[in-house]
């Protein structure tokens, strides 16, 4: 079970003066159960890349298959397959439209032909997932919520489809640390419990190093790096910099200390790991205490 891109290329505005290749020939496989981070600056091709994964864009060349089925085809099987790949766009709160929160979340499940009972169950589950109390919020208007809450309703609307692959484009943009934590703790839980594949597009390197098991870096329409995040952060700093992206702030501090002669491990996922790495390094030094 996987998403596979074979010799995929995408060009905008084919045959017009505005023709621009957004993604050069790409071959890649995304496996079931992975948590993938995707980084790259604006115009690197990353939004084209993720939109190809669920058939929102059709490749100009090559094929995209989800669990073995070509999503570019117009067959019933291809249409059904597309529902396995959920997509949370940047600022998803701007796509809310229903009169009540419950009905907005039900939009996806209803389109995919579930029964009313199933829909209701999905809505309750999705609201629980994003931490919105059903009793309190189900019948409220989504337009009367705070920005962070609207974002959670929008994410619930995608979760309710029960995607096996979940793509999130900067889901935490504009949120403070608490809001960021709320969004991600749900997603991580979902990933672990249901073994769904998560594809996270983000500029926040800290989030990526904390959660992703695989990192894909795009630059000028090419996948320039693809590997374990900590490997990439500790060995590919130059490539990252030239692609306009940075290593996580904690890693940056540790790498700076390494450069100043401290023998410490810079392969850390979190602040806590960084502290213990530094602490052990200092304890090993003769005069530290």
């Amino acid at each position, binding site marked *: 079970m996987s998403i596979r891109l074979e010799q995929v290329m995408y060009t*905008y*505005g084919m045959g*017009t003066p*505005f023709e621009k290749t957004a993604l050069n020939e790409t071959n890649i496989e995304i496996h079931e159960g992975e948590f993938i981070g995707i980084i790259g600056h604006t115009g690197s091709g990353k939004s084209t890349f993720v*939109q190809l994964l*669920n058939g*929102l864009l059709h490749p100009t060349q090559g094929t995209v298959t989800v669990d073995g089925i070509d999503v570019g085809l117009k067959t019933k099987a291809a249409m059904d397959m597309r*529902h396995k*790949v*959920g*997509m949370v*766009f940047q600022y*998803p709160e*701007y*796509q*809310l*439209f229903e009169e009540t929160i419950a009905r907005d979340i039900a*939009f*996806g499940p*209803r*389109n*995919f032909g579930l029964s009313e009972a199933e829909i209701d169950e999905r809505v309750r589950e999705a609201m629980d997932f994003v931490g919105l109390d059903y009793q309190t919020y189900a019948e409220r208007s989504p*337009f009367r919520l705070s920005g962070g809450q609207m974002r959670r309703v929008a994410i619930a*609307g*995608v979760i309710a*489809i029960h995607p096996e692959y979940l793509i999130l484009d900067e889901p935490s943009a504009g949120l403070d640390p608490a809001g960021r934590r709320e969004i991600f703790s749900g997603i991580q839980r979902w990933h672990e419990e249901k073994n769904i594949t998560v594809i996270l597009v983000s500029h926040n390197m800290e989030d990526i190093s904390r959660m992703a098991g695989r990192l894909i870096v795009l630059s000028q329409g090419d996948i320039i790096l693809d590997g374990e995040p900590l490997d990439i952060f500790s060995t590919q700093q130059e490539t990252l910099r030239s692609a306009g992206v940075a290593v996580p702030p904690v890693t940056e501090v540790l790498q700076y200390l390494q450069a100043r002669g401290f023998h410490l491990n810079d392969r850390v996922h979190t602040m806590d790991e960084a502290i213990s790495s530094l602490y052990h390094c200092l304890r090993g030094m003769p005069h530290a205490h």
Partner: protein
Amino acid sequence: MLTDITLGQYFPGNSFLHHLDPRAKIIGTMMFIVAIFFADSLLAYSIVTAFVVLNFIISRLPAKLILKSLRPLWIIIVFTMGVHIFTTPGDVVWQYGILHVTREGIYQGSRMTGRLIYLIVFSSLLTYTTSPIVLTDGIEHLLNPFRRIGVPAHELAMMMTIALRFIPTLLEETDRIMKAQTARGANFTSGSLWQRGKNMIPLLVPLFVSAFRRADDLATAMEARCYRGGEGRTRMNELSYTYRDGIAMTAVLLVTVVLATLRWLV
């Protein structure tokens, strides 16, 4: 993709026509359109044709743009032709059942269609060679004298400017919302007309909400930048007539006079 649509159809360039004052261009175009309707002889049509071709040559725009300007309106052109050919009474040259074509019909049809084509081509020349902003500026200036009778010239021009500015942004937004709802299983392309209309709600509601939010933001931003209506406002690029505008206006006037003379005096 929606964002590929070019708006205002402006083709930047450096020709004589590009450099004309927008006011001169607007008035000139209107005058010539009236002149087109004076034409009713072969000679008059030849003059009109020559003038349109000459202007296209001067504009240094690719000739295929002539066809491009006609494409959106071809149904109207064919319809006009059809109505005249089949309904004008006179010498029947061809008949099939109740349908009959007359010599007068062909003549009348060609005349009307010719006028229509010249009208479209010549006014597209105006939008091809004038940037939307300059055009708006020209319209504002031309409307200024009517302010005394309550025409809100500045406000109309500001509305047009902002609309032009936000059309690409809203098209991008439409594309994005459509994709987001498609990812949630929405279908914008099939079903009965009624069904399709209903399916637009998940697109239109967020689009309107977004447009209002943007309008609100923009109003705040404009206020923060000291906008308080047209009163006391100056412009960076003031419009000014040059000798070029004199030449252009004289040319159009000349053609108009010649066409009027051909119509009524010859």
